[in-house]
């Protein structure tokens, strides 16, 4: 799973080589020591204040952009000092866990929202910023905003939201005589058969990492049962609905066609012989993946250049007879959560980080970060990323990835259970029951 997050926003990712990069800026004062005597209002005070800020955009150009924004903010607010800590994804998780256990979370830090953030909130480590952001929260994409809420209260703000869909090789589709991307599940199965008949591997899948396979089941469940059934299951932990069994049955229909590359159960998402590499080197015709896919594919070509074939994107097909709208989707991205001891200025700084100006600059980088600030979508010019954004705009409902929306423990069970469908060791009924049972006990 980690690879996915590493890939987010790191176009042309060479993250593996980067290692832990702390930027040398270790926090000077811990949050509890920072002056917090200012009146608890949103208005910045003139008293000196320090904000500890951790982010994971450890590669340029994103890293530089955050630095520039911090510099601009402190120039305009001389009383505020921002202590930047830039971490590689895995190093961030380790370091944050340590700080969390010591009950000293940073003032502002990387968050993916969902179940992981809810666990931090339940441990009393986050600050409720609902009232502080009330005046400007409408400038943020509501679907993305919802991923950073627990029980209706806001604990963080997203700056990036992407969606999962099919990335496909137009040249290979042409070769198999498929002129329009499949719009229904039946058409997709049909396309798989046509590609197979042409001797082309229809789908690349990184089965070792488990979560790439989870996307199919999750999408099918969303298409079969609709957004209410999905949202209800995530919220209440009741996964016994029929749509979750139906998802398994439909997925089995796909698996039975043997559409995946040889040895896919041992293939990773990112890395030699993996899903991204199979796609990038034209050994497979399509893959279901998020907005970071072009960047990771580029990193998995021999010359680290953009893929040579015509890359296209289409949303997950609709399911005949299903209750779900074909525009609904799964997605996720990056945001910042606010630590429990953060000075009030933190929220004002956060507002600045997701302002139209900042979001437009992020979009213009075309780095895979898809701004959540309303109106900033137009700043993205890369055609692949634009197609993701267009579909995100159409979606009435974007559900956070199942393994992120739930607790890490339940997310692991979901991924494990779904993998048994691919390996042929589990039945659709068993998968739904396993997830349902685990959700009840956790």
């Amino acid at each position, binding site marked *: 799973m980690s690879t996915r997050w590493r890939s987010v926003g790191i176009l042309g990712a060479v993250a593996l080589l980067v290692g832990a990069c702390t930027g040398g800026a270790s926090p000077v004062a811990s949050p509890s020591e920072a002056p917090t005597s200012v009146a608890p209002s949103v208005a910045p005070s003139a008293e000196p204040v320090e904000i500890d800020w951790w982010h994971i955009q450890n590669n340029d150009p994103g890293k530089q952009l955050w630095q520039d924004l911090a510099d601009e903010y402190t120039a305009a607010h001389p009383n505020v000092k921002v202590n930047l800590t830039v971490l590689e994804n895995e190093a961030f998780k380790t370091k944050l866990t340590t700080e*969390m256990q010591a009950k000293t979370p940073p003032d502002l830090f990387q968050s993916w929202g969902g179940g992981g953030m809810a*666990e931090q909130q339940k441990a009393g480590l986050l600050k409720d910023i609902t009232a502080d952001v009330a005046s400007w929260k409408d400038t943020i994409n509501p679907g993305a905003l919802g991923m950073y809420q627990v029980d209706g209260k806001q604990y963080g703000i997203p700056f990036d939201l992407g969606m999962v869909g099919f990335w496909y090789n137009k040249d290979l589709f042409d070769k198999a005589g498929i002129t329009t991307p499949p719009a229904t599940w039946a058409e997709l199965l049909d396309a798989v058969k046509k590609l197979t008949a042409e001797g082309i591997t229809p789908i690349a899948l990184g089965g070792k990492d488990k979560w790439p396979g989870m996307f199919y089941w999750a999408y099918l469940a969303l298409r079969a049962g609709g957004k209410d059934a999905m949202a209800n299951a995530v919220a209440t932990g009741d996964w016994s609905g029929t749509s979750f069994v139906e998802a398994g049955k439909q997925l089995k229909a796909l698996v039975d066609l043997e559409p995946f590359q040889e040895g896919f159960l041992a293939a990773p998402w990112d890395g030699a012989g993996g899903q991204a590499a199979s796609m990038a080197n034209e050994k497979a015709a399509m893959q279901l993946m998020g907005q970071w896919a072009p960047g990771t594919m580029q990193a998995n070509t021999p010359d680290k250049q953009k893929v040579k074939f015509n890359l296209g994107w289409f949303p997950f097909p609709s399911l005949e007879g299903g209750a779900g709208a074909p525009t609904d989707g799964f997605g996720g991205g990056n945001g910042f959560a606010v630590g429990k001891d953060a000075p009030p200025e933190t929220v004002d700084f956060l507002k600045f980080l997701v302002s139209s100006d900042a979001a437009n600059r992020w979009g213009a980088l075309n780095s895979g970060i898809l701004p959540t600030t309303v109106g900033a979508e137009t700043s993205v010019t890369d055609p692949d990323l634009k197609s993701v954004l267009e579909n995100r705009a159409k979606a009435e409902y974007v559900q956070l990835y199942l393994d992120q929306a739930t607790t*890490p423990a339940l997310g692991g069970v979901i991924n*494990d259970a779904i993998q048994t469908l691919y*390996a042929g060791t589990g039945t659709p009924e068993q998968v739904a029951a396993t997830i349902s049972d685990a959700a009840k006990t956790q």
Partner: protein
Amino acid sequence: MTAALQSGARTRRRAVGAWATIGLFMLPALSLYVLFVLLPIAQAVRFSFFKWNGLAPLTEFVGLANYERALADPVFIGAVSHNVLIVVLSLALQIPFALGLALMLNRRFRGRAALRLVFFAPYVIAEVITGVVWSLLLQPGGLAEGALEAFGLGSLYHPWLADPSTVMLALFVIISWKYFGFHMILLLAGLQGIPRELDEAAAMDGASRRQAIRYVTLPLLGPTLRVSVFLSIIGALQLFDLVWVTTGGGPVNASNTMATYMFDWGFRRFQLGYGSAVAVILFILALVVALAYQRFVMRRDIEGAVTIYGG
């Protein structure tokens, strides 16, 4: 009488003094041992009685529920059986193979030093690198498939690491490749400690080469063999890095070991209480095996006696 009493008291005093000295000298090492070995173990045991995600305060006491859950989980039982499988295969195949090589390399012939180096080299390579290299070799389109095809044996290729029924055997081959050189060097060192005169004497008495190995070499190699077996068992029980890098415990948990299972639950799913319980089970298992082995198998070696009549 008085003299005897005085002498007794002096002896006692001297004994107390000696213990104080020993204690003083042991203090630095002992405090480090307590701080970095005993305390963490005690912590893990404590955590294992709680349901804990690492963030919230340690309040949800669940008693032995974590242990019950582990022992009732077919995935964990599967992981234990994979460890046992590696132990059995290592003892049945890997050590005899290493012994055969050691016997061969103990004779004089050209290129002996080079061969020793070649066989020992895999042991020097980091486990993570071994895992990556072997997964590249074995993956579809990798060197293994290419080599088989070059000899017209392409049909023999199978994505072994991707098939739940073959993944453990593939891992065993990788583990053996990595460690046979280590056992070989260990046994070679043992062989070189056996005086050549004994072999010559056996030959004089009309023993065949085979008989000499069976009745002279092997019994004298006993202590080394037992150490080799011991290290092999403990290594197999603690197996982690290679498996984690090569397969991540998959597909569908077919190659989980106790250690990968523990890591997955403790540090990826953040059920630190449950992960601690698994760690404690692993620790107890390894400890029991180690103590039993030392008590029953290696006792004579530890006492320093020379074993004459085999293990």
